[in-house]
């Protein structure tokens, strides 16, 4: 039996330990905010926090997630108003939105470790999150704005 915490709630899982965390989040817990994009850690759409670190949930097995604290886009803030989400709305970042949960989780993780990231640090941290609509400029602007808001 695998025990883990998802968005602050204790969960136990007795299925296949090699099952990707993303499958568990989406299909078992019905948390569909994290997206499947490539299933191979190439696009970043499935990014969640595992013990506070941005992690590709499609490549994380349930065995790896055992005993960990997982946060998804649904649990980033109980009112959906994390500073990153707030500026994301102010700056109108998303177009289709499919990659945005991953982008937001990656950005929130970056800002947890670096209060004032430079352009280069933003580009490096966000390089694994692909946006087909090409919202990169707005993402970078939003991260800078959020950095000002997170104290």
């Amino acid at each position: 039996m695998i025990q883990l915490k998802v968005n602050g709630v204790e969960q136990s899982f007795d299925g296949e330990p090699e099952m990707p965390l993303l499958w568990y989040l989406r299909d078992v817990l019905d948390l569909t905010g994290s997206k499947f994009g490539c299933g191979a850690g190439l696009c970043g759409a499935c990014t969640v926090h595992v013990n506070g670190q941005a992690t590709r949930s499609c490549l994380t097995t349930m065995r790896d997630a055992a005993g960990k604290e997982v946060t998804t886009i649904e649990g980033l803030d109980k009112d959906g108003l994390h500073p990153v989400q707030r500026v994301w709305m102010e700056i109108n970042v998303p177009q289709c939105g499919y990659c945005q949960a991953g982008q937001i989780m990656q950005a929130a993780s970056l800002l947890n470790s670096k209060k004032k990231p430079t352009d280069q640090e933003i580009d490096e941290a966000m390089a694994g999150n692909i946006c087909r609509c090409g919202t990169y400029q707005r993402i970078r602007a939003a991260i800078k704005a959020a950095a000002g808001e997170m104290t």
Partner: protein
Amino acid sequence: MSQIENVSRRRFLTGGIIAAGALVLGGRYYRKLSGGKLAHDTNADHATLHPSVYLGIDPDGTVWIVASRSEMGTTSRTTLPLVVADELDADWKRVKVEQALGDSRYGDQNTDGSHWIRSFYDTMRQAGATARLMLMQAAAKQWDVPATECESDLHVVVHRATNRRAGYGELATAAAKLPVPKREELKLKPKSAGRYVGKGQVSYDLEALVTGKAIYGMDAAWTAWCMPRWSTRPFSGAK
């Protein structure tokens, strides 16, 4: 990983389009299978004033606008309803956009070819103009003034000469008793009078998009449905 397969953009997109298309077709067949019972009627269908399949107005002033196409990431779900709201002179904050399922009454629902604004711009304007005219006629009747002297302002009908005004919600019940005007009777607003179109409105779904609440084709689930799929391992590496 031993092998990386190159999935072209086109193939990737095709998968998404099929997923979204399945939603629309699904509703159609559900309707047929359920013996014509309209399980997927919209709130617009049940609104007090419902002169078009694309919109309805309730006495509390809520304007329901139906997005008849699948959202494919180009914000059609915002843009087409916005055209209706503009022509209706509705307050966008009081508009609720609802997603239509597949139904021939909406006309072509294919979401392809980048043509839905071109193909549906006039239809959307006519839907908004129809409701606006009926609201103005209802107000004119109530105030005993010629309808031609009434005009719309944001979510209200006004008669400037007598300084009277009535909200769309208040007028909905009376307007619903009037005959739906013919297309030739409609007077479309000049483009310069628009409030929303071309003014940089944000997506209706913006909040849903940043909180993970937006439902994409892949997220849709029906517990009562049998979903056909090919037999395969549940995930890569499973036995």
